């Protein structure tokens, strides 16, 4: 191999080393820990095979099942809502000819505001308006609402970029064929946004399954456990209970599998076919 052909590999080596060390090595360790009885402080452990996974899936006090259902509920609420709202905002912003940058900035602001601050503000705000956080039924929808508000600016920008890439000719041709605005939206815009939609949905599903900060700040899993989610369950088991780091890692791997399954399903459903790459 010549020095010329080695050069590109040397360029990517530092980044690859960091990714391997903090990504794959850490994942490997957590996979191993999930097969042991492990305590973060004592460090002692014993190989238990798949016992932690069995306990998560079928144990008498399995926090995993409750947390999974709550997390799934959050995903169902937050993912479609964020997708729809961010697409609508992008469509509106796309039509605006003046001060488009100002609109983009305004909608993007919640995304760059730290979630801790946003959560504290919403916590007080929701207390004034009916206090859904105090209701077993409404706490999760309220948290999902915050998630939508916070995330839609970011995804709006992605949709906006994708909308700008759609050639005007397509709309002109559709118009000549007699398509109205709704038909143009359904048969031109939506199909040509499939690449962006696939990306947005993958990111939304991953983010929604990992929801943690707003719940930790606003409800800490309450009321009555109605907002206990997977990431919080992993955190609580790892740090609050003796010798449960292995169990927490097993839950984290199950969470990873859930996300992977949903992402694969979603990728198959929104396979773009590389329409106009």
């Amino acid at each position, binding site marked *: 191999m010549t020095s010329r052909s080695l050069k590109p590999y040397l360029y990517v080596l530092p980044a690859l080393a960091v990714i391997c060390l903090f990504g794959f090595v850490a994942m490997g360790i957590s996979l191993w820990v999930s097969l042991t*009885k492990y*305590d*973060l*402080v*004592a*460090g*002692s*452990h*014993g190989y238990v095979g798949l016992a932690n996974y069995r306990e998560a899936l079928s144990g*008498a*006090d399995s926090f995993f099942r409750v947390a999974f259902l709550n997390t799934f509920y959050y995903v169902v609420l937050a993912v479609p809502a964020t997708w729809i709202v961010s697409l609508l905002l992008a469509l509106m912003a796309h039509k605006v000819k003046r001060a488009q940058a100002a609109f983009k900035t305004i909608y993007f602001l919640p995304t760059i505001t730290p979630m801790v601050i946003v959560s504290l503000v919403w*916590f*007080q705000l929701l*207390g004034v308006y009916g*206090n859904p*956080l*105090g209701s*077993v039924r409404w706490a999760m929808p309220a948290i999902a609402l915050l998630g939508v508000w916070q995330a839609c600016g970011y995804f709006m920008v992605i949709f906006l970029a994708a909308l700008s890439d759609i050639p005007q000719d397509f709309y002109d041709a559709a118009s000549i064929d007699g398509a109205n605005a709704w038909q143009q939206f359904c048969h031109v815009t939506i199909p040509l946004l499939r690449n962006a939609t696939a990306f947005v949905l993958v990111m939304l599903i991953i983010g929604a399954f990992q929801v943690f900060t707003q719940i930790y700040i*606003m*409800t*800490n*899993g*309450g*009321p*009555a*456990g109605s907002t*206990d989610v997977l990431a919080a369950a992993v955190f*609580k088991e790892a*740090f*609050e*209970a*003796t*010798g*449960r780091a292995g169990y927490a890692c097993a839950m984290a791997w199950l969470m990873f599998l859930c996300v992977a399954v949903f992402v694969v399903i979603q990728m198959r459903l929104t396979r773009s076919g590389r329409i106009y790459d």
Partner: protein
Amino acid sequence: MLLATVALLVVALAPGRTEPGAAELVVWDWWSPSTTESYKAYFDELAQQFQDRHPDIRLRFQFIPFSNYPQKLTTGFAGNRPPDVFQCSVSWAETLFDRGVIRELNDLVDRTPALAMDQFLPAAVRHNQKDGRIFGIPIILDANCLIYNVDLFEQLGLPTDPHAIDSWETFLEFCRKLTLRDASGRILRAGFGLNSYRLSAIMFHPWLYANGGTFYDPATGRAAFDSPEGIEAARFLLRLRDQKVVPPFSPQLDIQEQFIAGKIAMFIEGTWSGKYIERNSEGRVRFAMTNLPPGPHGRGRSTVTWANMLMMSKACKHPEAAWEFIKFVAGIDGSLLRLKHLGQNSPRKDLYERPEWKEMVARKPYLAMVPEICVSGAKRPWFESSAAETAFGPYFERLLISGTADDVPAVMHAAADHITRIFERARAFFVGTAVSGPLSVVRCQTAAASAACLVTSPPCRLVSRRRPSDGDRT
């Protein structure tokens, strides 16, 4: 370029420069100079006085908020970078010791008469040792207590004597008189501050112990709050809710804030709360503290008392220097500093004989009852308490939000069963793993006993499987 980067990294990662011969101690605390100006003054004077006496020891304080403290401790120990000395909550102390990362202090205590266990109030030295092995030196003695607005009591002609509320029925009667409603029935002022959200477990404990119950029974290894005493305590809290003498429950409800605003007449917090109420109300609210009246099954006024402590990690490189620091902070001089700056009582007996304490009580009358409250408090076992309270919260929260008196036994039994399994799991961890240190517990099979039994070492002795080897014995 590469060399320069490496050199920069080496410089950046190098440990701080220490004077030749000086020992550097890393000290962790959740109290912080940034909490209030009083804490800043306390830490400034503490560091100054200690440095004057020990110029050869350099203190490096690291302040970590209480809510992040257990996670930070865990990662510190997991990464083998724990603090040398740290303030430890009673919630985590015993389990840290059980995990073999804390230095036993008996040898140091034996040669330090000022820190002998008989220098402390009995209530202060029941959570810092196990089977005679001392793992922490108490520096603060805390108890849950009932805090009441003296001005409101006087306005309504209610007796302000701390012992005037002598039963739960009298308490309820006081609550009714103190509750103020408008014409529509909306509560303008609640007799008592109770909230179902987040704090529900903490709200329950003092009532449980005032009724003669206990959260955990070391003799059986079971969660014991589903006893008749516990069920009665939970039902009493539901009665307070149903009689509408408490504010509407809300996640945003800040009970201390409402107390200061005059919208709540009584609430339960801790003996440490006085300084915050005084500061946040700018001295406008006249209040007093007392222990809880006995419940129907109670044996006199009571509450829950505990002592937080200073601990030394096993990894401490300068144990002698660390002990000097502990001696100073947990000794009478450290106690006097906390009294002076924080108005804090002490686990030490000798503080209460000092003129400084009497002067402070004259200045802050709410402190007068603090020794009695602390001494009257029951010992609450803190074994695996974080996990237990996390599990207990949702059960009790649901009960307070929508439960009825008839629901109480079933909910309490379900919660107790769940938490008993948590205790069993934690005990099994210590049984099934070889944790270093004197507490290692091993499973053995004897010829005499066909069933597996637990044997603690040393000395080797048989104990029933249901009996917790790591229970809360003092």
